[in-house]
């Protein structure tokens, strides 16, 4: 990954000098709440550097909140998040993005009123130059090159997800957070996108992704966890986790989970 050399002139950001060394992601006792309703009850999770971890769980388990806490969008009420061993809890999302935490939210992380090119321009805040970003994005997704000057809102769902993924591909992140990549997309496109993710992992990026729909991500993940009602109830190899999942979806009370007062 020699692309770091082409960091644009934008003020020597602290990350500019850092090599894209693989960075592990650790969560220790993370809690988070909406107003006074706690939705994460102490999450411990370790993602090895350069591996792909998948967190699976039913709707409302707190998966998206978990990713938002790591990305700095939602505050943690307790616990610690570490990237490459460095505590980043409470950092604002823009700073985290510049430190190499790339988060792609649920439902196409694109700006619908900006053109494809302008969307890619926004990627350059993370440190890679504009030309480099466009070259890499258009090289990987030639479809986007043909629509470079169209508003992103006019793209198909799959193309929008490609554009969102282009941010992960081109900004040399250390940690990538993916929320429901598969949502609303044809299985063929989902598989293609996860191949892209796999490629990123191979290049040394640490990936944490969250899904409701399991099979595709289990096929590519290195480690998987089940999350139910704000708690991680099982962690293991993807093949072992498949069995746990049935319980999570069918009973709402996997072992270790105290039945919440719902």
């Amino acid at each position, binding site marked *: 990954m020699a692309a770091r050399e082409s960091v644009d002139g934008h003020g020597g950001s602290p990350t500019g000098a850092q090599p894209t060394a693989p960075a592990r992601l650790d969560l220790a006792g993370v809690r988070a709440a*909406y*107003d*006074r*309703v*706690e939705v994460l009850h102490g999450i411990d999770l370790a993602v090895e550097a350069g591996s792909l971890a998948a967190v699976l769980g039913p709707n*409302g388990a707190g998966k998206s909140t978990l990713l938002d806490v790591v*990305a*700095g*969008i939602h505050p943690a009420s307790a616990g610690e998040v570490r990237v490459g061993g460095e505590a980043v809890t409470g950092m*604002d*999302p*823009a*700073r985290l*993005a*510049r430190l190499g935490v*790339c*988060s*792609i*939210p649920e439902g196409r*992380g*694109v*700006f*619908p*009123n*900006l053109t494809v090119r*302008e969307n890619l*321009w*926004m*990627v*350059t*805040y*993370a*440190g890679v130059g504009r030309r480099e970003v466009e070259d890499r994005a258009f090289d990987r997704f030639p479809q986007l090159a043909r629509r470079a000057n169209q508003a992103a809102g006019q793209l198909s769902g799959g193309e929008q997800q490609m554009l969102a993924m282009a*941010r992960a591909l081109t900004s040399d992140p250390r940690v990538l957070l993916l929320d429901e990549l598969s949502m609303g997309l044809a299985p063929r496109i989902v598989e293609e996108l996860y191949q892209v993710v796999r490629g990123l992992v191979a290049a040394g990026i640490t990936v944490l992704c969250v899904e409701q729909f399991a099979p595709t991500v289990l096929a590519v993940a290195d480690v998987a966890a089940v999350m139910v*009602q704000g708690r991680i109830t099982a962690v293991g190899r993807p093949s072992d986790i498949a069995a746990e999942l049935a319980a999570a979806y069918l009973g709402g009370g996997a072992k270790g989970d105290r039945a*919440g*007062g*719902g």
Partner: protein
Amino acid sequence: MHAFVVYTISGLATGGIFAITASGLTLTYATTGIFNFAHGAIGMIAAFAYWQLRTQWNMPTLLAFAVVVIVLAPLFGLGLERAVMRRLQGTTEVTKIVVTVAVALGLVSLALWIWNPGTFRTIRPLWSGRVIVWGPVRISWNDVAVLVLAGLVAGGLRILLHSTRIGVAMRATVDDPSLVARNGSRAVVNARVAWVIGASLAAMAGILVAPKLTLSPLPLTLVIIDAYAAAVIGRLRSVPMTFVGALLLGLANDYGIGYLTNIGAGQQYLQGFVAAIPVVVLFIALLAMPTARLRGARLHRTTELSYRPTWRGALLLAAAVVVVAEMLSEVLSRGDLFHSTQIWGLGLIGLSFVPLVGFAGRISLCQLSLGGIGAMVAAHLGASGDPLALVAAVVVTAAVGAVVALPALRLSGIYLALSTAAFAVALDRWIFGLPPFTVFGHQISLFQGGSLQFTRPHLGPLHLGGDHAFFVAGSVVFALCLLLVVGLRRSDTGQRLLAMRDSPAASATLGMNVRSATLWVFTFSAGLAGLGGALYGMGLQSVDAGRFDLFSGVTVLLAMVVAGISTVGAAVFTGFFLGGPSLANLFPTLTQLTAVAVASAAVGVGRNPNGIIAAYLRPQWDAVVRAPRLLAGLLGGLAIAYALRLGGVLDNWGWVVTSLVLIGSALAIGQLVAAHHPAGPPPDVTHPTVDGPAERLAGPVPDRAVELPGAPRGRP
């Protein structure tokens, strides 16, 4: 031909000024999603500051211009972003509008305070005196310079927004601020840049337009209305379209002034129309907008909740209004009582906002202007004291309201606010000022050449001519209307209006006719406003058109929002606050104080969009009601205070202060009692449910703030 060229050049220059101001408006709206009603007021303050530097302190012209536009205005924009606008993220459109309007009102009051409005001031054009002679045509150098400046501004903005990264990020911020942050760009920085440039452009336009008008706060602030039309032509998004729109508007304006005033016939009817041209253009531009798609509720959790009032509470409030009115009418001095009669009119106009804005979520800025129509009807038909004039005022105003609503049905949010503002300004600048005209042989003089004269009605043997009788009768009418609105809120219709506010799309898919419901609520509210306007006029017996202008109307809306736009109690607050004698009596020298107080309170609304009643007063009051002995003690204390007043021991202020202290201590004791004997689930309990967080207001007893239909609340 000669004249045509002259009008064209001056029209383009006028358009250039519109373009500068409108593009500043578009920039801040496109970046922050806040439509800045204070944009014109910023330009106005800048024009005054420029006058101070140039004329008073003899600074060179261009230096003074540069100091205001490059230094002072950007600093002001920075402060505005920091102190006010940043808090508006995630609030509703009504709150955003009201807060920026409050800023505008505050600035106008500030200008009136600093620069004595009695003094006549003028600003000379920046490049005055020099003339380009081109054949028979003499072109002012200033006009050309303004046009060039406008072109530079438009080009610069175009480059900023499309060819710089921060410009692209500014546009991205409107789409999704959190995604901007995920990309590593700071939304706060982007918004700050927008406010700085926006304020600077507002200042530039203010200084350029001031020589064409007199240097006085209101006209300069209202010039912005003219620029709204250009901004709307640009769909509040496109800078080039805004520029073109502004030039067309400038041309229409100056051709209108040039040619319409030369037509022989009907001159007196057209004069006001010329002033209303930009407003008419705005109205047409809004109607030409493609229909906004019905939108579902945005996926953010609303912090603005609607309380379902109980009959018991409503009856108590209505009774209290009448009792207090009777008490006041006994003790107020003649002059105070006369002025206080406007409480009920203003209160009713405030009440007319409740169904429309509070329940249905439709913003109207023309309720007071509709009140003006009601006042006209009542003055004309009620000259003999016939109470049917009030009924006629309601019916006619409701009909006008329906007609205004028809074209506005397709609009919502900011566009609806703008079109109702346009209507208010058109009434104010043109219709209310129309000279007498003849229809079917009847001569009609709408505002009777400036001010309307009223006769207070008599009901059979009951003559309401005296202040005392009229004051109490007014309170009864007001109290009945309070109950009517509470009834509406509790009815199926009220539920439907709220549903429509929360999600028009969901309401439509459930089979509701959103349009007819909107039309209905517009009509209903207009009727209330008409009644309010009629009572307002009858109370004061003589009112001029200025009392019904846009700014006064917006002040009423501000007071309502401060108190809580979806509660009827807010109307009581508004009536007493704006119509009562208290503030003017307390601080007779500071006539601007009322406006400043309302404005600064409204600026705080961003923090607590439910208003003070829902946030503080109601939960505390509920605690008092739950402690019968405390309530009895409070009522006894109030009775004793009133007795002391009647006995002459206390004067009016002593009585008011004593009563307020009594109420305040009762509320405080109620809090203490509630803290020791919780009469429900303890306030700090968490609900570990998966279906969503507990609803919560800023008040200390959150779980009681919202009542679900079908779950009647039991009070001990």
